[in-house]
């Protein structure tokens, strides 16, 4: 009861803070600069993508390394568990349905990644869609099927390649003398705003981040589900042993 009152009190306090705010009519500060100059300087039609991959590219590199650290942490915590058995998967109807859906999901994910500089979307979102495909395969067909189709080593390689590609694109800017992760200043072609081939390095960075996020989230899910199946299998064998006794 006291906790509920405490939470209500904090909520009331926060509400008093935002209730005093006015509806802003215009934008000031760096955001106004980004809105005015994005088309000129980067050639990207999606201003959010331009901010993420051009103006604040180093931020995004740090963000990608957070995912990498998480994958390392999860893999380290579950390193000793050996893979024993897989779940049986779901019914025939679910299997047919998912195998019908997977090509469309792959198409959707690649669209989100490749059009990230023109429409809402980008590497993070498209990578999450790719990870969803592998998670669906894992749940519906069982994790041993998923492991046999997409090897964990392959996922690790894709993730590392994505990270290296990102840093390499940053290094191109450094070589051109324009600074780390420089875009048009480093000689990447700007193109026509709204065209598919535009915005310099932003589509390439989108692809790199997409590889990284897709493979990383998929690895996290796979190592967790493997451990859970292992524990479930142990409990099942314990139950069977008790039955015999």
């Amino acid at each position, binding site marked *: 009861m006291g906790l509920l009152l405490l*939470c209500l009190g904090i909520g009331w306090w926060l509400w008093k803070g935002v209730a005093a705010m006015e509806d802003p009519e215009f934008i000031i500060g760096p*955001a106004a600069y980004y*809105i005015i100059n*994005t*088309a000129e300087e980067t050639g990207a*039609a999606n201003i*959010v993508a331009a901010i*993420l991959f051009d103006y604040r590219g180093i931020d995004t590199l740090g963000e990608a390394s957070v995912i990498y650290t998480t994958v390392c942490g999860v893999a380290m*915590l579950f390193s000793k568990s050996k893979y024993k058995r897989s779940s049986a998967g779901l019914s025939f109807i679910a299997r047919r349905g998912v195998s019908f859906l997977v090509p469309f999901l792959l198409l959707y994910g690649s669209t989100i990644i490749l059009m990230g500089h023109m429409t*809402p979307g980008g590497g993070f979102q498209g990578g999450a869609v790719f990870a969803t495909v592998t998670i669906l395969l894992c749940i519906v067909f069982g994790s041993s099927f998923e492991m046999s189709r997409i090897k964990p080593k392959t996922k690790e390689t894709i993730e590392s390649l994505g990270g290296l590609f990102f840093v390499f694109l940053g290094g191109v800017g450094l070589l051109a003398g324009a600074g780390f992760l420089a875009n048009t200043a480093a000689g990447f072609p700007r193109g026509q705003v709204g065209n598919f081939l535009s915005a310099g390095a932003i589509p390439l960075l989108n692809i790199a981040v997409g590889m990284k996020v897709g493979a990383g989230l998929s690895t996290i899910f796979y190592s967790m589900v493997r451990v859970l199946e292992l524990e479930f299998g142990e409990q099942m064998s314990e139950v069977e042993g008790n039955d015999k006794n």
Partner: protein
Amino acid sequence: MIKISYATAIFVFCIGLYTILSKRNLFKTVIGLTIMESGALMLIVTAGYVHGGVPPLIPMEGQAVNPLPHAFTLTAIVIGASDVALALALVIKVHRRYKTVDLDKIRGLKE
């Protein structure tokens, strides 16, 4: 209208806070953490709204909303997903060690 959005964000945040404070189950604590995170993200996105704004995509008709909070939210979503994954991994580890995820029972076992 914008006040309703702020109120929703604060409401969701307080639900998450109450979940974290009151539940003893570690999984429920992690769920509360994600709910709190959603509230914070709603607050950030709402803070970028401009009266009568359009999405920040070229070509724009009229005043665009602030694109900076959107970029920050993308960053925060990814980091939130990462820390939830790590927290769940640690909870699984705790469950293997103590065979329970109840905080009170874990404390009882230690003494």
